[in-house]
């Protein structure tokens, strides 16, 4: 079989050694194919594999059988069956997930990310595009530039693909008309002017018949450009910039013994050789490269290689740091303007805290402002309070500590990040850094001389936050009130933050949507922290329905100072009590977003104190909490 051209087959047969030598120097091009459901995307890839002889006889036999059984091409081969891998996809005749395909020619190896066309799979297209050099955008010649075409072009430009092949397909169905081709091309160019795509290469083709796919078409003499495969073999590969300043995020500190200390990582940009002066970011410490190692010593290494470096000095350097050139070290910041592509069913809420992974560093982050979202079909900017699945927004984000970065347009490796949900651990978003916000450098933490421990000691107690969570009407405020009376009687200094009361003042501007609930708790968490800093015992009585925000409030305090009190009253019981008549109103639909009725409550998984109000009276609950405070030394005076 020639999975290669006939010349190559001859060479393989005649001189395998020469063939291998020739093929060791092949380059690698990664591209994505996108287009809507019926544009013939799978057919095109099937055709590329088939024509480049990547289909084996046994696969071909299976394809023939499958085509006869479930194909859409009558008696002909249905190439799309070669690539639709999951059985759910085959049944529905659509592509659900990104699939990766491989083929090679005498000149290049290709990795194809085959990405689905439906709007609900925006996340898959972004996934596939994130590692691609080039995008092939399919257009059905009969239908021209469609909404999907615009969406895919926008996503491709957003993710930084600078070279788009406009594959105007199904030319056989429009009589190979040059007019049709040029009309579509003009439409597309007019639209694409608003995007950041450096090069557009239009190719008229018929994937089904193989015209202009792997061989020049004889039916379209008016077209003088290359066929698709020729173009793919010749297009410049936008690999990581070798000319750019050196960057290597430290992935792993290699210490096999006390004589060797190496820093392993993937070179994101530039080149490196022994003797180079480098800066370790974010610390800014300087050293020189002693050795560049793969399994033996290398004279130099370039962007795109995984290597190990040793330094001339014993400087502090660990995973998450970035070894950079001295002349142009990478920047450091903790606040950014970014574009975020939301990829999860649970919406992004500003203020909620997520994990952010950038390079080899993971920190916590939250969106401080959602400036607008982008309608991916019209590119219009739309005001929004949250981002839903497959929505894209311009967001300011704030990180728990500064990270080393480059703008995404400079470096995908140091400018692209993912967000991870702290409870489900799912990857919920992809983000791209535009620039650092200056504020980060201008607001400094003011050091003070009287510490929080000193303030608490003065009051003969240690500071803590008792965080009461539970449904409306569960008895939180009643119990909190009893506890505070006892603390007061013991001469302890406390304060009580009550959900209803705080909403009259500090949080008067917030409603009850998920977004506002997140902000409500964020503010109260910060407030509780300030009061704990003052040495107080802070009682917080808030429904606080979401785990994420309770976790955020917990993380604001030193370990052991946050005690979560779960006032556990089943919905039926709380509703039966209904002290404020709110459940009745909610059931009548007069209150929107009511926790337990029309808005979720996520019970704590491991509260420090769990009160089952079916078995425990309010007085008993207060006893329980006082004992817990006693045991933790909160009342004893000595700070913990």
């Amino acid at each position, binding site marked *: 079989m020639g999975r290669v051209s006939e010349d190559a087959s001859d060479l393989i047969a005649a001189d395998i050694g020469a063939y291998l030598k020739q093929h060791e120097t092949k380059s690698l091009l990664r591209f994505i194919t996108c287009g809507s459901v019926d544009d013939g995307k799978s057919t095109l890839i099937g055709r590329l594999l088939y024509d480049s002889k990547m289909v084996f006889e046994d696969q071909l036999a299976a394809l023939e059988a499958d085509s006869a059984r479930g194909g859409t091409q009558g008696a002909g081969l249905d190439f799309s069956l070669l690539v639709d891998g999951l059985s759910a996809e085959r049944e529905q005749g659509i592509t659900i*997930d990104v699939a*990766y395909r491989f083929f090679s020619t005498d000149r290049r190896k290709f990795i194809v990310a085959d990405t689905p066309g439906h709007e609900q799979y925006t996340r898959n297209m972004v996934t596939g595009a994130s590692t691609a050099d080039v995008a092939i955008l399919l257009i059905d010649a009969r239908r021209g530039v469609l909404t999907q075409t615009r969406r895919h072009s926008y996503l491709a430009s957003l993710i930084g693909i600078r070279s788009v092949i406009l594959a105007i397909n199904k030319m056989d169905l429009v009589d190979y008309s040059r007019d049709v081709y040029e009309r579509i091309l003009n439409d597309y160019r007019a639209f694409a002017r608003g995007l950041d795509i450096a090069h557009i290469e239009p190719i008229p083709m018929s994937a089904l018949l193989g015209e202009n796919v792997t061989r020049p078409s004889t039916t379209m003499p008016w077209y003088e450009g290359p066929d698709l495969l020729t173009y793919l073999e010749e297009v410049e590969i936008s690999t990581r910039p070798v000319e750019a300043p050196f960057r290597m995020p430290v992935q792993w500190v*290699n210490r*096999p013994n006390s004589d060797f200390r190496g820093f392993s990582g993937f070179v994101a940009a530039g080149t490196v050789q022994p003797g180079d002066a480098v800066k370790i970011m974010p610390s800014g410490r300087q050293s020189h490269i002693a050795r560049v190692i793969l399994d033996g010593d290398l004279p130099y290494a370039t962007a795109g290689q995984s290597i*190990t470096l040793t330094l001339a000095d014993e400087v502090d350097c660990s995973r998450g740091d970035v070894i950079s050139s001295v002349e142009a070290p990478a920047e450091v910041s903790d606040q950014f303007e970014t574009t975020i592509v939301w990829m999860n069913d649970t919406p992004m809420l500003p203020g909620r805290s997520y994990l952010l992974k*950038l390079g*080899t560093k993971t920190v916590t982050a939250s969106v401080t402002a959602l400036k607008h979202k982008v309608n991916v079909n019209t590119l219009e900017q739309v005001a929004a309070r949250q981002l839903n699945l497959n929505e894209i927004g311009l967001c300011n984000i704030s990180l728990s500590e500064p990270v080393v970065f480059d703008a995404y347009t400079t470096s995908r*490796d140091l400018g*692209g990040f993912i967000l991870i949900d702290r409870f489900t651990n799912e*990857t919920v978003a992809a983000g791209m850094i535009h620039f650092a916000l200056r504020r980060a450098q201008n607001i400094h933490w003011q050091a003070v001389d009287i510490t929080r421990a000193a303030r608490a000691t003065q009051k003969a107690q240690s500071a803590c936050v008792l965080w009461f969570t539970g449904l409306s009407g569960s008895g939180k405020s009643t119990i909190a009130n009893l506890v505070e009376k006892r603390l007061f009687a013991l001469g302890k200094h406390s304060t009580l933050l009550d959900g209803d009361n705080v909403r009259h003042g500090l949080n008067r501007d917030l409603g009850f949507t998920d977004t506002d609930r997140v902000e409500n708790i964020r503010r109260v968490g910060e407030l509780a922290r300030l009061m704990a800093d003052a040495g107080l015992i802070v009682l917080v009585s808030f429904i606080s329905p979401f785990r994420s925000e309770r976790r955020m409030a917990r993380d604001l305090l030193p370990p052991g100072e946050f005690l979560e009190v779960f006032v556990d009253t089943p919905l039926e019981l709380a509703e039966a009590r209904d002290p404020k008549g709110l459940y009745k109103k909610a059931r009548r639909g007069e209150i929107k977003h009511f926790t337990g009725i029309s808005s979720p409550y996520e019970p704590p998984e491991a509260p420090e104190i769990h009160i089952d109000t079916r078995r425990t009276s309010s007085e008993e609950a207060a006893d329980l909490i006082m004992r817990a405070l006693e045991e933790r030394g909160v009342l004893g005076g000595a700070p913990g």
Partner: protein
Amino acid sequence: MPDAGSSGLQAVAGLTHLQRLEAESIHIIREVAAEAEKPVMLYSVGKDSAVMLHLAMKAFAPGKPPFPLLHVNTTWKFRDMIAFRDAQTTALGLELIEWINQDGVARGINPFDHDAYTDIMKTEALKAALDHHGFDVAFGGARRDEEKSRAKERIFSFRSADHRWDPKRQRPELWSLYNTRKNKGESIRVFPLSNWTELDIWQYIARESIPIVPLYFAAMRPTVRANGLTLMVDDERMRIPAGETPELRMIRFRTLGCYPLTGAVESHATTLPEVIQEMLLTKTSERQGRAIDRDTTASMEKKKQEGYF
């Protein structure tokens, strides 16, 4: 960069496809070492495992990979595989954990009589080994070009507490950022060779002079024909089909597994270049020699949902 131009660095502007694949795999392996609690490398002794192991050695040179190797031994592997395995791990100074489903052995489970053989001695054994040792991340040598459902699997592929793969709930995998966080009980299979093809594997073996099991090279070996496959009579436990007598044939293997289930190809390729030459000129895909794939088109997808590696 001081004097980048004068040191001849411009000449290296483009990495070759093997260099890019190697760099990606090493990056993946190091990322697991940095973030996993207790990783392990599944070592099947085949050519893909050999490449994966070679990459792991490179990733941590001059040190050793900070994780052990795990070999799930069905007790029906080719003898040459076991000998090669032991010699390799000793030479490299690596820890090898061998896991045998002793219950299956006691029950006399064998590839001739039991349809559930692969499930019991391989799939179940692997799950038991991972659970027993508490490994949270396991490297596997699978490649996306092997089979259609593999083409859609992530490099970091999550398994539920009972080791099931849910193809509809895969995490998006962006750039080279891998999310290694998981919930209690969940584990991750990581495939550093995802983007390699069979040809890449062979070219890399040739370029790096990676040792592989001699069974990949043609030699005269005792064989019988059964169920359309040419099988090697590797020891006295082989059941000879009625009417067959073992015959010496010049054969080699494109993949290695349990000898009663692994079909040989007749071949005269006794050197690496000849093997590659044969591979390039051959007309069937490498999985054809494996009995496991041929039931239904979706069989691998189903098997993986059930926990097959």
